[in-house]
């Protein structure tokens, strides 16, 4: 590898030599320090020169800052109350919505639950067996009342006389009589 490299290096050297052909302007390197110093000076001072301040800026600066801090603290108190109110409003709004949905959903479920036709006799018996201790006389009375009220709801007036006669003269009566004999 080394020999190969040397051969290539020698080939380039013999063909081209060590001169790159690049040149610079006359006195370039003599003047370069000045160029850099000027540029560096400009670069370093550009920030200082670009920004100016009012002549009395530093006078009473402490007083200005402390006043600003006091004002800020007052504002913070006001803002904190405002912040609290702003925090409560959305929370209460959210709570109202939840309550509204909850009540409606409860009512909806309740109407679905009051469907006595879906309750089997066994279920009623089981419930009575399990809850017999918790049922008092008043509960039973109220239930009796409810049953009576249901009877009251039956509209006998709609049954006309002919129907009653038909009912009396049905075969059912005969059957019952025959059974008795």
């Amino acid at each position: 590898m080394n020999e190969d490299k040397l051969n290539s290096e020698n080939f380039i050297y013999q063909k081209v030599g060590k001169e790159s052909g690049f040149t610079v302007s006359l006195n370039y390197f003599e003047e370069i320090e000045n160029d850099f110093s000027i540029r560096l000076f400009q670069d370093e001072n550009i920030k200082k020169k670009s920004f100016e301040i009012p002549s009395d800026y530093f006078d009473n600066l402490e007083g200005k800052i402390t006043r600003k801090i006091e004002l800020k603290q007052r504002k913070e108190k006001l803002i904190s109350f405002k912040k609290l109110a702003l925090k409560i409003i959305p929370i209460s709004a959210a709570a109202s919505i939840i309550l509204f949905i909850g009540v409606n959903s409860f009512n909806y479920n309740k109407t679905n639950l009051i469907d006595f036709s879906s309750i089997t006799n066994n279920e009623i018996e089981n419930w009575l067996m399990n809850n017999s201790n918790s049922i008092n006389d008043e509960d039973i009375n109220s239930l009796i009342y409810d049953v009576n009220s249901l009877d009251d709801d039956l509209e006998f007036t709609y049954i006309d006389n002919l129907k009653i006669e038909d009912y009396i003269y049905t075969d059912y009566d005969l059957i019952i009589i025959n059974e008795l004999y």
Partner: protein
Amino acid sequence: MIDEVTLVKQLKNKKNKDAAFRDLISQYKEALYWHIRKIVISHDDANDVLQNTFIKVFKNIDTFKEESKLYSWMYRIASNESLTFIKKRAKEKKIDITEVYIDLASNLQSDIYFSGDEIQIVLQKAIATLPPKQKLVFNMKYYDDLKYNQISEILETSVGSLKASYFHAVKKIENFIKKTD
């Protein structure tokens, strides 16, 4: 000529910094200029990059840890500034870095700061085709006569890797020149 250690001490001392910086420029301007010039090709661009390099040295001298030699540190800054400049040019023109180099080498004939003949332009065109690392290694070894351990310190790359890079670079250049003959 001030030794490196003294120069660094003076550069880090605010009192002596400006004067020391002038000495620094005076000592390294030519070496750094030619190193940059061979990467960016044009004199005007080399001048800009050289100024940026010295300004960076001036601003960052306090962060220089003295783990490497001052010239290695400055060469590294110059190499990075040069490569950054070429990358920026490629981005501006929306072309590949290699294309930027080929363009620059092709424009050498009309460059007033180039006095080379046809074969030197061919060599520059050949160098233009090399990857950035091989380009740097070739320039530092062939033109600047730097030793591998010096290049290793500048580029923070192992000597073995540098030898391989140089070998590939000279082979590619040899083949390029032979093709154009």
